[in-house]
């Protein structure tokens, strides 16, 4: 049996999305930019998708720019906004738990004369208003805080944080890639100028993302060329992926609420059993304010890469924030930001459920987990009540 419990990494493509995409991969290949009928048909498909995407996040269609990924949307938001508004200030404030796409895009702007300040988080991964205020100054032009965290699932109080940013005269960018489709989003209510989303985190295809740019917000394009996407993003549109993205948003709008309820119940029960069936384990992230399908554990005395591989042998696909799996050999910055030691971050395991997760899959995971943890603990020099583990 195979239990895929890594939905935060990527989601399977929904069959209904695939169905919607197929004609655009097969017969309807024309370029949306042309003026003859085949092109116009493609153009309409892109615009139809734009409306569906806009509707899911409470935007109007003209405010949605399609990109090749969530990463590109984050880069366009940060770099594009900073470059277009450099007279408003030179500081960008980001939370300590942002996705690498956001952190690295900010870092890249340092060579362009911008400076970056990091707002810390509390032990649950929440950016508190106080921490944000501390990082802000009059020179801040942009604040970036994610809607939810992809590792620990913590959901931020964006509205409250955006208000603080606005009081300081800064615009607000919200990376909602992992949250979109799992929890409701309304850009008006959140009161943000920029918001990034991605198709493959919500049962759409890889290769499609979008950036919401509120009317009146100036953003400099990163890709120059034929002037597609109102000039914000040149390059021939990835029509099949965009159509799929639109369909995925449509399905999410219909099913999100019920699905979230189901996932929350299944996740809560799974967490309860992991905590009761395995010793010396903690749950990372916020006890309540977290994405419905997310669980993140830290198992003491053992390391995550070994854990993930052992679970893989047992037919379970999950992930870890251990330093041993990172190309830089650094532990996850999210786990260290919430105060985990290196050793604790080593033993982290992220288990994320989604639309196609069955109770059988969860049961399978629960049935193999204690044995796997126990085996690795026998190999480890650190033991319960022993010394050296910090």
């Amino acid at each position, binding site marked *: 049996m195979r239990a895929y419990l890594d939905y935060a990494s990527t989601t399977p493509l929904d069959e209904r999305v695939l169905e919607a995409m197929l004609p655009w991969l097969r017969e309807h290949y024309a370029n949306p930019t042309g003026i003859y009928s085949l092109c116009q048909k493609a153009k309409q498909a892109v615009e139809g998708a734009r409306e569906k995407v806009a509707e899911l996040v409470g935007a109007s269609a003209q405010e949605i720019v399609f990109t090749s990924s969530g990463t590109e949307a984050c880069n366009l938001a940060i770099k594009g906004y900073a470059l277009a508004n450099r007279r408003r200030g030179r500081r960008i404030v980001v939370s300590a738990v942002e996705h690498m796409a956001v952190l690295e895009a900010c870092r890249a702007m340092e060579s362009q004369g911008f400076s970056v300040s990091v707002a810390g988080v509390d032990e649950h991964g929440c950016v508190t208003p106080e921490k944000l205020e501390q990082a802000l100054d009059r020179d801040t032009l942009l604040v970036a805080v994610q809607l939810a965290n992809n590792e620990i699932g913590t959901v931020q109080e964006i509205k409250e944080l955006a208000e603080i940013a606005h009081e300081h005269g800064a615009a607000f960018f919200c990376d909602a890639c992992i949250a979109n489709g799992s929890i409701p989003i309304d850009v008006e209510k959140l009161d943000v100028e920029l918001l990034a989303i991605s198709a493959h985190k919500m049962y759409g295809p890889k290769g499609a993302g979008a950036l919401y740019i509120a009317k009146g917000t100036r953003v400099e394009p990163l890709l120059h060329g034929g002037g597609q996407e109102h000039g914000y993003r040149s390059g021939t549109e990835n029509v099949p992926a965009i159509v799929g993205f639109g369909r995925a948003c449509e399905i999410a709008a219909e099913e999100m609420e019920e699905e979230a309820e189901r996932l929350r119940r299944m996740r809560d029960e799974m967490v309860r059993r992991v905590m009761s069936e395995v010793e010396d384990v903690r749950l990372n992230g916020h006890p309540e304010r977290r994405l419905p399908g997310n669980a993140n554990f830290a198992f003491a005395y053992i390391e995550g*890469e070994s854990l993930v591989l052992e679970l893989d*042998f047992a037919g379970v696909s999950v992930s870890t924030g251990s*330093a041993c799996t990172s190309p830089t*050999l650094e532990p996850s910055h999210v786990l260290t930001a919430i105060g985990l030691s290196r050793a604790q971050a080593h033993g982290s395991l992220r288990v994320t459920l989604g639309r196609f997760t069955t109770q059988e899959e969860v049961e399978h995971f629960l049935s193999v987990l204690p044995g796997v943890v126990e085996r690795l603990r026998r190999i*480890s*020099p*650190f033991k319960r009540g022993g010394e050296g583990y910090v």
Partner: protein
Amino acid sequence: MYSEILLEHFRNPRNMGRMEKPDGVGKVGNPACGDVMHIYIKVGKNSSGEEIIEDIKFETFGCAAAIGTSSMVTELAKGKTLEEAEKISKEDVAEAVGGLPPIKMHCSLLATKGLRKAIEDYRRKKGDAGEGGEDSGDSQEG
């Protein structure tokens, strides 16, 4: 990413566990990623009277490469004279496990360091035998 040999050692580690009353202990920590390895040895003599590693055990807190190479280094060292065992290099271990990704070579290095430290510890204890050198070999640096 990993060879079959490495995965096999990871799943069925040889000589794993703590040793009662070892003659030497090597405790090393990995400065790169923060893993920890303990190697325990018992020293005996071969027929020509040379000191050999009669028994060896390990405990590892680390990735699959760290566990697999710990297991392999104990296999390579067992029965060898102390001089031979000391010469086992990270490349020897990596080769024996069927190769390692470059980013995992430091795990192999950790295994050989652990072994050398255990031998060092044994020699030091032997050197100042009777003077209570029991607590040596505890330092965690790699």
